[in-house]
């Protein structure tokens, strides 16, 4: 049984050549068509994920969620789009018009651009470049630029504060993200996304590097600006953060960018740590890989929504110390231990999975012990200050 995607591509190629178009131009046309198709499908995925997220979040919070427009509220997103599209696009006084309009374009473009290197099924990836992960990191940072553009051009103090917070948070959490991504690159021996998926035909990397997977997941959540890291747009502190001055579709595009980003991060996690399209029976029927990939994305996305529904927001100083004093040192430790232990295990002929799992477990135990000791010392210090005799102010006057 041949791959339907290849078959469709072959069919279009034959059709174009038969009407007398040059083979090179046919290839270029086919690439452009595929890119337009993938880009628009990913963009439209937001319509479904917004509904799914609102519905699930409502269930977590013991509500019903959207249930009026269409069956199970399925058409709610369309109603929202029509509402937003018929609103006035306001540009505030003193705003930098062009940067103001460009900002949502940059955010959405940067997120959808990530899908260019995503391996969708065996032999099916938009652009199978050998620096895939580096591309992901580079394009992933463009979203930050868009948010800074929005914050600076709005001519609003709240937007400005939101943009500052975003820069601080996104820059900080890129560091553990980078360190965590080094480990799958080490294990796969390549930065190409397809190579990384192929390297997981035996064991998924989440078994070889569970801590790296966790660090990647947490720092991705921070990059996303979702709960518990949503202090970029904390309504109670800075109204809405960087997108406060946007009305109608300008706001809608930031929302869409965020939802597509959440979906993209689920896909990245699935590709890098959950084996992408790997699963039973893909050798005999490759299109099955697409289904596995989708299932894994939905699984990770569910966890992201679950976290959004159950975690409180953290403070900015907590966000900061959590990154620089906990996750970054932990990522450095995991990187060093994995590099040394894996090399020794392979050279001495030990089982790679068992040794790496054991070393990760030891790191977790040591970390838990250190955190416990630190918490105990904090508690002791607090108790000492509590017990200290409080200086009673002298009764003044009579």
């Amino acid at each position, binding site marked *: 049984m041949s791959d339907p995607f290849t078959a469709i591509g072959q069919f279009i190629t034959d059709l174009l050549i038969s009407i007398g178009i040059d083979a090179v131009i046919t290839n270029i046309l086919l690439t452009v068509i595929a890119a337009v198709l993938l*880009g628009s499908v990913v963009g439209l995925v937001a319509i479904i994920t917004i509904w799914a997220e609102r519905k699930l979040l409502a269930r977590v919070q013991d509500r019903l969620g959207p249930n009026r427009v269409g069956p199970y509220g399925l058409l709610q997103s369309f109603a929202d789009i029509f509402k937003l*599209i018929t609103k006035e696009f306001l540009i505030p006084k003193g705003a930098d018009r062009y940067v103001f309009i460009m900002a949502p374009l940059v955010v959405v473009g940067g997120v*959808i651009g990530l899908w*260019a290197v995503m391996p969708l099924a065996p032999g099916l990836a938009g652009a199978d470049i050998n620096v895939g992960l580096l591309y992901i990191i580079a394009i992933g940072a463009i979203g930050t630029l868009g948010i800074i553009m929005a914050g600076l051009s709005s001519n609003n103090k709240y937007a400005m504060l939101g943009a500052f917070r975003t820069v601080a948070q996104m820059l*900080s959490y890129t560091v553990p993200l980078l360190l965590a991504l*080094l480990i799958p690159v080490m294990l796969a021996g390549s930065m190409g996304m397809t190579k990384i998926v192929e390297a997981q035909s035996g064991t998924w990397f989440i078994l070889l590097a569970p801590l790296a997977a966790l660090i990647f997941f947490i720092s991705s959540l921070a990059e996303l600006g979702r709960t518990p890291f949503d202090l970029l747009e904390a309504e109670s502190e800075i109204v809405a953060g960087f997108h406060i001055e946007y009305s109608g*579709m300008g706001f809608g*595009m930031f929302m869409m960018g965020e939802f597509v980003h959440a979906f993209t991060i689920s896909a990245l996690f699935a590709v890098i740590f959950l084996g992408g399209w790997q699963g039973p029976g893909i050798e005999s029927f490759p299109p099955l890989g697409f289904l596995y990939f989708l299932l894994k994305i939905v699984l990770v996305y569910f966890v992201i929504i679950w976290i959004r529904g159950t975690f409180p927001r953290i403070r900015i100083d907590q966000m900061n110390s959590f990154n620089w004093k906990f996750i970054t040192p932990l990522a450095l430790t995991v990187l*060093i231990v994995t590099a*040394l232990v894996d090399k020794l295990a392979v050279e001495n002929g030990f089982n790679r999975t068992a040794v790496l799992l054991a070393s990760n477990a030891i790191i977790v135990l040591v970390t838990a012990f250190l955190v416990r000791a630190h918490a105990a010392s904090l508690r002791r210090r607090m108790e000492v200050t509590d017990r200290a005799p409080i200086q009673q102010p002298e009764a003044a006057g009579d």
Partner: protein
Amino acid sequence: MTLDWLFIGTILVVGAGMAAAPIALQNILGPRKPNKTKSETYECGIETVGDSWVQLKGQYYIFGLIFLIFDIEAVFLFPWAVAYNRLQFYMVVEGVVFILILAGGLAYAWRKGALEWV
């Protein structure tokens, strides 16, 4: 290979277009009745006092600097990670020493109190 980069270029343009199209459509379909109050800077109903280009805290620069160190480090570490399977043990140790020097920098910043949020 060239086609791969063409694909990337196209998808980036399509991505930006996905955002540009609804905004353009809104400009056609939506009303346009600007007035003085409406285009004021939104601050929950209070009029803006002073310049909205507020100064940012100096501390953001320190974090920017620490980030820069680690970001450049990544440029050196990714080739090392790609070649990892072909490296001898002592080469891996050299990479680890490099990471340890960086960790030393982080420890120094921590000790100096640059990581405290004040």
